[in-house]
């Protein structure tokens, strides 16, 4: 008996359920902003949706999502618009006030790190991604990932003295 492949829609739904947190966290590590992270992650999945019929769902899709999220996050006009959104767009309503409060202090502490440093540290420690996976997502070498993580940890240690 053969098991039919799931439809692209079903495969997408499964990917959204399984990978959303990882993609959101990656976007949050890069942007250091709850609103931007949500926007970036939503956009990454929306792009996956538009490509659902051409995607080989038998292959891992996380790498593609992370690279796409990075590209979205660094898009020039999103960066320009971000200054406007700080005033215009509150954090997503789905996030409770307590979480937002906790993130305020954390955000200030992590703002001392570059996006690359944050992603290199947090995605390894929290999501368990390898240096190779993080490097592929960030478009840098594994050596650069390790160097960024090292610099980031040093900054965090300095901050906490």
């Amino acid at each position, binding site marked *: 008996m053969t098991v039919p492949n799931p439809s692209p829609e079903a495969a997408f739904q499964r990917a959204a359920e399984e990978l959303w947190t990882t993609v959101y966290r990656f976007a949050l590590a890069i942007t250091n902003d709850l609103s931007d992270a*949500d926007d970036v992650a939503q956009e990454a999945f929306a792009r996956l*949706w538009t490509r659902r019929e051409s995607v080989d769902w038998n292959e891992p899709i996380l790498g593609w999502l992370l690279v796409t999220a990075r590209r979205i996050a660094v898009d020039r006009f999103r960066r320009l618009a971000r200054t406007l959104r700080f005033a215009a767009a509150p954090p997503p309503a789905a996030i409770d006030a307590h979480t937002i409060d906790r993130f305020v202090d954390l955000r200030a502490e992590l703002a001392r790190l570059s996006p690359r440093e944050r992603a290199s540290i*947090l995605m390894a420690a929290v999501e368990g991604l390898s240096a190779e996976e993080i490097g592929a997502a960030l478009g840098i070498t594994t050596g650069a990932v390790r160097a960024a993580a090292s610099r980031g940890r040093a900054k965090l240690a300095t901050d906490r003295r």
Partner: protein
Amino acid sequence: MSARRDPVEEWREVSAQAAAGGYRARARTVGRGMVGRSIGVVAFAVVALVAGLLVRALPTTGPAATPGGPVTASVEDANFRLTLTTPHGTYGPDDPIESVASVTYLGPKASETMYHAMRPMGFQIEEVDSKRAMGGGMDQPCLRTAVANGQSVSLPFEKAGAIADDPATGFDRAWYEDPVLRLPTGTWRIVAYLDVALGDCGGESHKLTVDNVIRVVDGATSSPTPAPSSPTAPASLSADAETALEIVRKYEDAFATDHAEQAWPLLSRWSKTVTGSSATFADAEHRWRATAGSPVIADPSRDPALLDPAFLGERAADIAASADLGRAYVVSVRRPEVDGAAAATENLVVAPTADGWRIWIDATAGRYGMWSYPDGCAAFELSPRRCDAVVDVAADNISYDRANASSVLLASDPGCGSDPLTDEIVLCTRSLSFVAGVVFESADGTSVRSDVFCGPGAPTLVCSDTPGIQIVDLHSGYWDVPCAGEAPDGCATPVPFPTGAAADVGRELRIASVDVPVGPIGHHEVVLGTAVLVNGIAQEGTFTVNDQLQDGFLLDPGIVRLELRSTIAGRPPFDNIYSRGTFDGPEEVRVFLVFDVAEASDSAVLHVQNVLVK
């Protein structure tokens, strides 16, 4: 006093809670892949051709949605332009909607044959912010359509897709069987896609997608439409709004026709100051537009929320101080998604000043024309490898340790110091070509900029992904300057060389061609052979690496040097005849190729030719 928590652990918890909302599907433009191949799985319902009105396509550079008038948008690649035109932006539920797609051949040939499924273009419909959709699709025979250069093939809208059981997600059989497109109230995105191949079915693929967004409103009727090419704006726009729209169209057209100098005078003084120079403006806008889709200019708006200082940002104070804020408009320029860049909207503010109507660009002072590294490398047409080399060189040039940078930005051409408040585009007169500016930002808030240029010198990765190879040899041996004065006033001549029996002791090294393995990373000294010089005088020491690029390896510096080294102990190196002197009798020398390898594949070789040492 409580101990502070580990920020990583804190981040783990906060990010998990923030992510708990999950993915929320939202309406987006549907870009279908190769329809002729992928649509075979779609359950097919009805394909009905709408005998619609053929509307002449608008130019690519002038897409705009006007309230009662046509909605049109174009997108193109190197070979084709796809244009979708819908006669009106607003319809009533009973109005026929007569969208037309057209494809124009732009390629290098006099005519081209497009291979495609049932038709070269297809249509889809999506309800914005809801689920109703017509998925499109067509049978997949391999048909072909010829199109002459500059000519268009038009196709009116036609329905195709699967009948939906649930009216909340699609349309029923009766709707599909009606050849006329009518839509329920709501906001709808009509999508046209081009899906063709060149050469044969399965050949070079060309896919383009473009959309029109229209509204269907109860009680509305589609008013008579001016011809799409009519320059007159719809009467519903005020005179000021028409002016604002015209200014932005002129601004966008300037870039579309590669005349940034025509856009520069349209900027407000604030915008000019933010950009820094006309050269920076032209360079930055060119880079960004090279990766962005064709613009769609929205209607001018005086929505108070858009004119709120919190939305306008840094430019708000200047607009209030130097322009008539009561007549200011926000004009949004939307660019569709293209590979490598997200869909983006730039909100321009257009307002009258004492000097006329001017534009306030959507920018942040100090960041205009900058891209973050490494993602911005594409804007500078730099491969990741080359971009990294550029940043390295930028850091070296100012003795900056890259490890100290909290972030790195790539910056546009700084120009040549022209006054940004003039309307002139000042061209730089440089002997070097600009590659990129690199801004290193430190955690303490300071930053430093280093600009990288290319010019004469050893070929490097900074200036090319496949740099050439500079050869350094002895040319035609030692020369003297026996005439009065130095060259060019004097006349350089070869050093006197012995003749007769004294010269017979010499033995030249001559190699027509040899492939020298580049070898592993590091310093290399490869022996080519030996030669015997008469009285220690080098008459000639030459070689070539004809037309070879550093492809598959990288030399740093990009130099291959030919060196002669005497086998007689104590003899000085070969630099010049004066410091080295002559030698009484034959002098054997070993001939080396010297180079430093920074990167190499196992099979990389130097194609050395025409070695001659005597």
